[in-house]
Protein backbone atom coordinates (compact mmCIF):
# COMPACT_ATOMS: atom_id res chain seq x y z
CA UNK A 1 0.00 0.00 0.00
CA UNK A 2 1.39 3.42 -0.88
CA UNK A 3 2.49 5.62 2.02
CA UNK A 4 0.03 8.33 2.86
CA UNK A 5 1.05 11.96 2.99
CA UNK A 6 -0.70 13.77 5.85
CA UNK A 7 -4.05 15.11 4.72
CA UNK A 8 -3.99 13.22 1.43
CA UNK A 9 -6.17 10.38 0.21
CA UNK A 10 -4.98 7.05 -1.14
CA UNK A 11 -6.14 6.17 -4.67
CA UNK A 12 -8.46 3.50 -3.25
CA UNK A 13 -10.00 6.02 -0.87
CA UNK A 14 -10.61 8.43 -3.74
CA UNK A 15 -12.32 5.63 -5.67
CA UNK A 16 -14.48 4.72 -2.67
CA UNK A 17 -15.52 8.32 -2.11
CA UNK A 18 -16.33 8.67 -5.82
CA UNK A 19 -18.48 5.54 -5.67
CA UNK A 20 -20.29 6.89 -2.60
CA UNK A 21 -20.79 10.28 -4.22
CA UNK A 22 -22.22 8.73 -7.37
CA UNK A 23 -25.09 7.05 -5.52
CA UNK A 24 -26.02 10.12 -3.50
CA UNK A 25 -27.80 9.92 -0.17
CA UNK A 26 -29.38 6.48 -0.68
CA UNK A 27 -26.12 4.82 0.31
CA UNK A 28 -24.16 1.97 -1.22
CA UNK A 29 -23.00 -1.30 0.32
CA UNK A 30 -19.44 -2.62 0.37
CA UNK A 31 -19.71 -5.17 -2.41
CA UNK A 32 -21.35 -2.61 -4.70
CA UNK A 33 -18.48 -0.23 -3.98
CA UNK A 34 -15.98 -2.93 -4.99
CA UNK A 35 -17.97 -3.51 -8.14
CA UNK A 36 -18.19 0.18 -8.92
CA UNK A 37 -14.42 0.57 -8.52
CA UNK A 38 -13.79 -2.39 -10.83
CA UNK A 39 -16.18 -0.95 -13.43
CA UNK A 40 -14.50 2.45 -13.29
CA UNK A 41 -11.10 0.84 -13.76
CA UNK A 42 -12.49 -1.45 -16.47
CA UNK A 43 -11.18 -4.35 -14.46
CA UNK A 44 -12.84 -7.70 -13.80
CA UNK A 45 -11.14 -8.00 -10.43
CA UNK A 46 -12.89 -6.75 -7.34
CA UNK A 47 -11.04 -4.97 -4.55
CA UNK A 48 -9.79 -7.42 -1.93
CA UNK A 49 -12.23 -7.75 0.95
CA UNK A 50 -9.84 -6.80 3.73
CA UNK A 51 -8.41 -3.86 1.79
CA UNK A 52 -11.87 -2.49 0.99
CA UNK A 53 -13.38 -2.72 4.47
CA UNK A 54 -10.28 -1.42 6.21
CA UNK A 55 -10.33 1.62 3.90
CA UNK A 56 -14.05 2.09 4.57
CA UNK A 57 -13.39 2.08 8.32
CA UNK A 58 -10.58 4.61 7.92
CA UNK A 59 -12.81 6.94 5.92
CA UNK A 60 -15.59 6.48 8.44
CA UNK A 61 -13.31 7.28 11.37
CA UNK A 62 -12.04 10.31 9.46
CA UNK A 63 -15.61 11.56 9.05
CA UNK A 64 -15.46 11.39 5.25
CA UNK A 65 -18.26 8.86 4.97
CA UNK A 66 -21.06 7.78 7.27
CA UNK A 67 -22.72 4.40 7.52
CA UNK A 68 -25.83 2.69 8.82
CA UNK A 69 -27.51 -0.69 8.66
CA UNK A 70 -30.36 -0.93 6.20
CA UNK A 71 -33.94 -1.56 7.30
CA UNK A 72 -34.09 -5.22 8.51
CA UNK A 73 -37.43 -5.62 6.75
CA UNK A 74 -35.79 -4.89 3.41
CA UNK A 75 -33.12 -7.51 4.03
CA UNK A 76 -35.68 -10.06 5.22
CA UNK A 77 -37.85 -9.44 2.18
CA UNK A 78 -34.84 -10.00 -0.10
CA UNK A 79 -33.71 -13.07 1.89
CA UNK A 80 -30.17 -11.89 2.50
CA UNK A 81 -28.07 -10.57 5.37
CA UNK A 82 -28.37 -6.93 6.38
CA UNK A 83 -26.42 -4.52 4.23
CA UNK A 84 -24.17 -1.90 5.73
CA UNK A 85 -24.72 1.22 3.66
CA UNK A 86 -22.23 4.03 3.19
CA UNK A 87 -22.62 7.57 1.93
CA UNK A 88 -20.27 10.49 1.53
CA UNK A 89 -20.34 13.36 4.03
CA UNK A 90 -19.76 17.04 3.35
CA UNK A 91 -16.16 16.71 4.52
CA UNK A 92 -15.75 13.68 2.25
CA UNK A 93 -17.10 15.57 -0.76
CA UNK A 94 -14.68 18.42 -0.10
CA UNK A 95 -11.74 16.02 0.28
CA UNK A 96 -12.75 14.19 -2.90
CA UNK A 97 -13.05 17.41 -4.89
CA UNK A 98 -9.65 18.46 -3.62
CA UNK A 99 -8.08 15.10 -4.52
CA UNK A 100 -9.63 15.11 -7.97
CA UNK A 101 -8.46 18.65 -8.56
CA UNK A 102 -4.91 17.75 -7.50
CA UNK A 103 -4.99 14.69 -9.77
CA UNK A 104 -6.13 16.69 -12.78
CA UNK A 105 -3.51 19.41 -12.37
CA UNK A 106 -0.53 17.36 -13.68
CA UNK A 107 -2.61 16.35 -16.70
CA UNK A 108 -3.41 19.98 -17.32
CA UNK A 109 0.26 20.90 -17.07
CA UNK A 110 1.12 18.11 -19.48
CA UNK A 111 -1.49 19.28 -21.96
CA UNK A 112 -0.39 22.89 -21.64
CA UNK A 113 3.28 23.23 -20.66
CA UNK A 114 2.76 26.97 -20.21
CA UNK A 115 0.22 26.35 -17.44
CA UNK A 116 1.35 27.63 -14.08
CA UNK A 117 -0.56 27.05 -10.88
Amino acid at each position, binding site marked *: MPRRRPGSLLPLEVSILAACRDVGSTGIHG*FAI*AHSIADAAESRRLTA*TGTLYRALHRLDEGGLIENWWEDPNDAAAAGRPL*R*RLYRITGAGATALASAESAASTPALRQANPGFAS
Partner: protein
Amino acid sequence: MSDTPGDRSTRLARWWVRRYTAGLDEPAATFRRAEIDSDLAEHDLYRNVSGWPPARIRRERLRRLAAGAPSDIGWRHDRLRGRAPRGVGIVVVPLTSIASLMLAAYYGAFAAYNLGNSALADQQIFGRSPLQGFEAYADETGASTAALIIAGLGLMLAVAAIARPIAPVVANAVTLPIAAVAVMFFWLGVWPFGLAVFAGAATDLALRAPRVTVP
Protein backbone atom coordinates in the same frame (compact mmCIF):
# COMPACT_ATOMS: atom_id res chain seq x y z
CA MET B 1 -26.31 -20.20 1.78
CA SER B 2 -25.41 -23.87 1.77
CA ASP B 3 -26.22 -24.26 -1.91
CA THR B 4 -24.08 -21.38 -3.08
CA PRO B 5 -21.20 -21.90 -5.50
CA GLY B 6 -18.69 -20.52 -3.07
CA ASP B 7 -19.78 -22.78 -0.25
CA ARG B 8 -16.31 -23.91 0.76
CA SER B 9 -14.76 -20.54 0.12
CA THR B 10 -17.59 -18.97 2.13
CA ARG B 11 -16.77 -21.22 5.07
CA LEU B 12 -13.11 -20.34 4.73
CA ALA B 13 -13.91 -16.62 4.64
CA ARG B 14 -16.11 -16.95 7.74
CA TRP B 15 -13.46 -18.95 9.53
CA TRP B 16 -10.88 -16.30 8.72
CA VAL B 17 -13.06 -13.42 9.91
CA ARG B 18 -13.73 -15.29 13.16
CA ARG B 19 -9.97 -15.72 13.59
CA TYR B 20 -8.94 -12.11 13.14
CA THR B 21 -11.87 -10.73 15.11
CA ALA B 22 -11.22 -13.09 18.04
CA GLY B 23 -10.60 -11.30 21.31
CA LEU B 24 -11.69 -7.89 20.01
CA ASP B 25 -14.42 -5.81 21.57
CA GLU B 26 -17.67 -7.58 20.81
CA PRO B 27 -19.36 -4.66 18.98
CA ALA B 28 -16.37 -4.24 16.64
CA ALA B 29 -16.10 -8.00 16.04
CA THR B 30 -19.83 -8.43 15.43
CA PHE B 31 -19.85 -5.44 13.13
CA ARG B 32 -17.01 -6.83 11.03
CA ARG B 33 -18.48 -10.33 10.84
CA ALA B 34 -21.86 -8.96 9.73
CA GLU B 35 -20.18 -6.76 7.17
CA ILE B 36 -18.23 -9.66 5.67
CA ASP B 37 -21.30 -11.89 5.81
CA SER B 38 -23.16 -9.33 3.77
CA ASP B 39 -20.29 -9.09 1.29
CA LEU B 40 -20.24 -12.87 0.87
CA ALA B 41 -23.98 -12.95 0.26
CA GLU B 42 -23.73 -10.15 -2.29
CA HIS B 43 -20.92 -11.98 -4.03
CA ASP B 44 -23.17 -15.02 -4.37
CA LEU B 45 -26.04 -12.94 -5.67
CA TYR B 46 -23.66 -11.44 -8.19
CA ARG B 47 -23.52 -14.84 -9.86
CA ASN B 48 -27.06 -14.27 -11.17
CA VAL B 49 -26.16 -10.88 -12.62
CA SER B 50 -22.75 -11.69 -14.05
CA GLY B 51 -23.45 -15.18 -15.29
CA TRP B 52 -20.06 -16.22 -13.96
CA PRO B 53 -19.70 -19.97 -13.44
CA PRO B 54 -19.56 -21.11 -9.79
CA ALA B 55 -15.86 -21.99 -10.06
CA ARG B 56 -15.05 -18.44 -11.08
CA ILE B 57 -17.07 -16.94 -8.23
CA ARG B 58 -15.19 -19.26 -5.87
CA ARG B 59 -11.79 -18.32 -7.28
CA GLU B 60 -12.56 -14.62 -7.16
CA ARG B 61 -13.74 -14.89 -3.57
CA LEU B 62 -10.59 -16.75 -2.54
CA ARG B 63 -8.44 -14.20 -4.33
CA ARG B 64 -10.20 -11.32 -2.55
CA LEU B 65 -9.80 -13.14 0.73
CA ALA B 66 -6.08 -13.88 0.27
CA ALA B 67 -5.20 -10.45 -1.14
CA GLY B 68 -7.02 -8.73 1.70
CA ALA B 69 -5.58 -10.83 4.53
CA PRO B 70 -2.72 -8.40 5.32
CA SER B 71 -5.25 -5.57 5.55
CA ASP B 72 -7.43 -7.71 7.84
CA ILE B 73 -4.46 -8.13 10.16
CA GLY B 74 -3.75 -4.41 9.90
CA TRP B 75 -7.36 -3.67 10.74
CA ARG B 76 -7.07 -5.91 13.79
CA HIS B 77 -3.93 -4.02 14.80
CA ASP B 78 -5.84 -0.77 14.42
CA ARG B 79 -8.57 -2.07 16.73
CA LEU B 80 -6.08 -3.37 19.28
CA ARG B 81 -3.97 -0.24 19.28
CA GLY B 82 -6.38 1.57 21.57
CA ARG B 83 -6.19 -1.18 24.17
CA ALA B 84 -2.60 -2.36 23.66
CA PRO B 85 -0.49 -2.64 26.79
CA ARG B 86 0.77 0.82 27.64
CA GLY B 87 4.14 1.92 28.94
CA VAL B 88 6.72 -0.83 28.72
CA GLY B 89 4.35 -2.97 26.62
CA ILE B 90 4.64 -0.64 23.64
CA VAL B 91 8.34 -1.48 23.47
CA VAL B 92 8.22 -5.08 24.69
CA VAL B 93 5.61 -6.42 22.29
CA PRO B 94 7.32 -5.61 18.96
CA LEU B 95 10.78 -6.27 20.40
CA THR B 96 9.80 -9.75 21.53
CA SER B 97 8.54 -10.54 18.03
CA ILE B 98 11.74 -9.32 16.42
CA ALA B 99 13.92 -11.09 18.98
CA SER B 100 11.93 -14.32 18.53
CA LEU B 101 12.47 -14.18 14.78
CA MET B 102 16.20 -13.56 15.29
CA LEU B 103 16.41 -16.48 17.70
CA ALA B 104 14.56 -18.64 15.18
CA ALA B 105 16.99 -17.60 12.44
CA TYR B 106 19.86 -18.44 14.78
CA TYR B 107 18.49 -21.93 15.49
CA GLY B 108 18.03 -22.54 11.76
CA ALA B 109 21.50 -21.28 10.84
CA PHE B 110 23.05 -23.27 13.70
CA ALA B 111 21.39 -26.48 12.53
CA ALA B 112 22.29 -25.87 8.87
CA TYR B 113 25.90 -25.01 9.74
CA ASN B 114 26.38 -28.10 11.91
CA LEU B 115 24.86 -30.41 9.36
CA GLY B 116 26.76 -28.94 6.43
CA ASN B 117 30.00 -28.83 8.36
CA SER B 118 29.81 -32.42 9.52
CA ALA B 119 28.88 -33.69 6.08
CA LEU B 120 31.65 -31.75 4.36
CA ALA B 121 34.24 -32.79 6.92
CA ASP B 122 33.28 -36.40 6.42
CA GLN B 123 33.55 -35.96 2.68
CA GLN B 124 37.07 -34.58 2.99
CA ILE B 125 38.23 -37.31 5.37
CA PHE B 126 36.51 -40.33 3.88
CA GLY B 127 35.88 -39.21 0.31
CA ARG B 128 32.11 -39.66 0.69
CA SER B 129 29.51 -37.45 -0.95
CA PRO B 130 28.04 -34.77 1.35
CA LEU B 131 24.81 -36.78 1.68
CA GLN B 132 26.62 -40.03 2.46
CA GLY B 133 28.85 -38.11 4.83
CA PHE B 134 25.86 -36.70 6.66
CA GLU B 135 24.16 -40.10 6.87
CA ALA B 136 27.29 -41.66 8.33
CA TYR B 137 27.74 -38.77 10.75
CA ALA B 138 24.09 -38.93 11.79
CA ASP B 139 24.30 -42.67 12.41
CA GLU B 140 27.27 -42.19 14.65
CA THR B 141 26.29 -39.13 16.59
CA GLY B 142 22.53 -38.72 16.42
CA ALA B 143 23.13 -35.36 14.76
CA SER B 144 20.02 -35.67 12.62
CA THR B 145 17.79 -35.88 15.68
CA ALA B 146 19.47 -32.89 17.26
CA ALA B 147 19.26 -30.94 14.02
CA LEU B 148 15.58 -31.77 13.63
CA ILE B 149 14.84 -30.63 17.17
CA ILE B 150 16.76 -27.40 16.69
CA ALA B 151 15.18 -26.68 13.30
CA GLY B 152 11.74 -27.58 14.68
CA LEU B 153 12.16 -25.21 17.62
CA GLY B 154 13.29 -22.47 15.26
CA LEU B 155 10.32 -23.02 12.99
CA MET B 156 7.87 -22.93 15.91
CA LEU B 157 9.47 -19.77 17.20
CA ALA B 158 9.21 -18.13 13.79
CA VAL B 159 5.54 -19.14 13.50
CA ALA B 160 4.89 -17.78 17.00
CA ALA B 161 6.52 -14.45 16.16
CA ILE B 162 4.56 -14.13 12.91
CA ALA B 163 1.29 -15.22 14.58
CA ARG B 164 1.65 -12.67 17.37
CA PRO B 165 -0.74 -10.14 15.79
CA ILE B 166 -3.46 -12.79 15.49
CA ALA B 167 -3.06 -14.72 18.72
CA PRO B 168 -0.56 -13.00 21.02
CA VAL B 169 -1.28 -15.21 24.01
CA VAL B 170 -0.77 -18.41 21.99
CA ALA B 171 2.40 -16.92 20.46
CA ASN B 172 3.72 -16.21 23.95
CA ALA B 173 2.81 -19.69 25.12
CA VAL B 174 4.96 -21.11 22.30
CA THR B 175 7.76 -18.58 22.68
CA LEU B 176 8.26 -19.04 26.42
CA PRO B 177 9.25 -22.74 26.51
CA ILE B 178 11.44 -22.43 23.39
CA ALA B 179 13.30 -19.47 24.83
CA ALA B 180 13.58 -21.43 28.07
CA VAL B 181 15.23 -24.32 26.18
CA ALA B 182 17.83 -21.92 24.82
CA VAL B 183 18.52 -20.69 28.34
CA MET B 184 18.61 -24.10 29.99
CA PHE B 185 21.08 -25.66 27.58
CA PHE B 186 23.36 -22.63 27.38
CA TRP B 187 23.55 -23.09 23.63
CA LEU B 188 26.62 -21.48 22.14
CA GLY B 189 26.24 -18.16 23.85
CA VAL B 190 22.64 -17.76 22.71
CA TRP B 191 21.29 -18.13 26.21
CA PRO B 192 21.37 -14.39 27.08
CA PHE B 193 19.37 -13.77 23.94
CA GLY B 194 16.97 -16.57 24.91
CA LEU B 195 16.68 -15.05 28.37
CA ALA B 196 15.79 -11.69 26.85
CA VAL B 197 13.11 -13.29 24.66
CA PHE B 198 11.81 -15.22 27.67
CA ALA B 199 11.60 -12.06 29.76
CA GLY B 200 9.96 -10.13 26.92
CA ALA B 201 7.35 -12.82 26.23
CA ALA B 202 6.61 -13.19 29.96
CA THR B 203 6.17 -9.42 30.32
CA ASP B 204 3.98 -9.30 27.24
CA LEU B 205 1.85 -12.13 28.63
CA ALA B 206 1.56 -10.42 32.01
CA LEU B 207 0.54 -7.13 30.38
CA ARG B 208 -2.17 -8.88 28.39
CA ALA B 209 -3.62 -10.71 31.38
CA PRO B 210 -7.12 -9.55 32.31
CA ARG B 211 -7.01 -6.85 34.97
CA VAL B 212 -8.90 -7.65 38.14
CA THR B 213 -10.38 -4.57 39.73
CA VAL B 214 -10.70 -4.74 43.48
CA PRO B 215 -13.77 -2.85 44.64
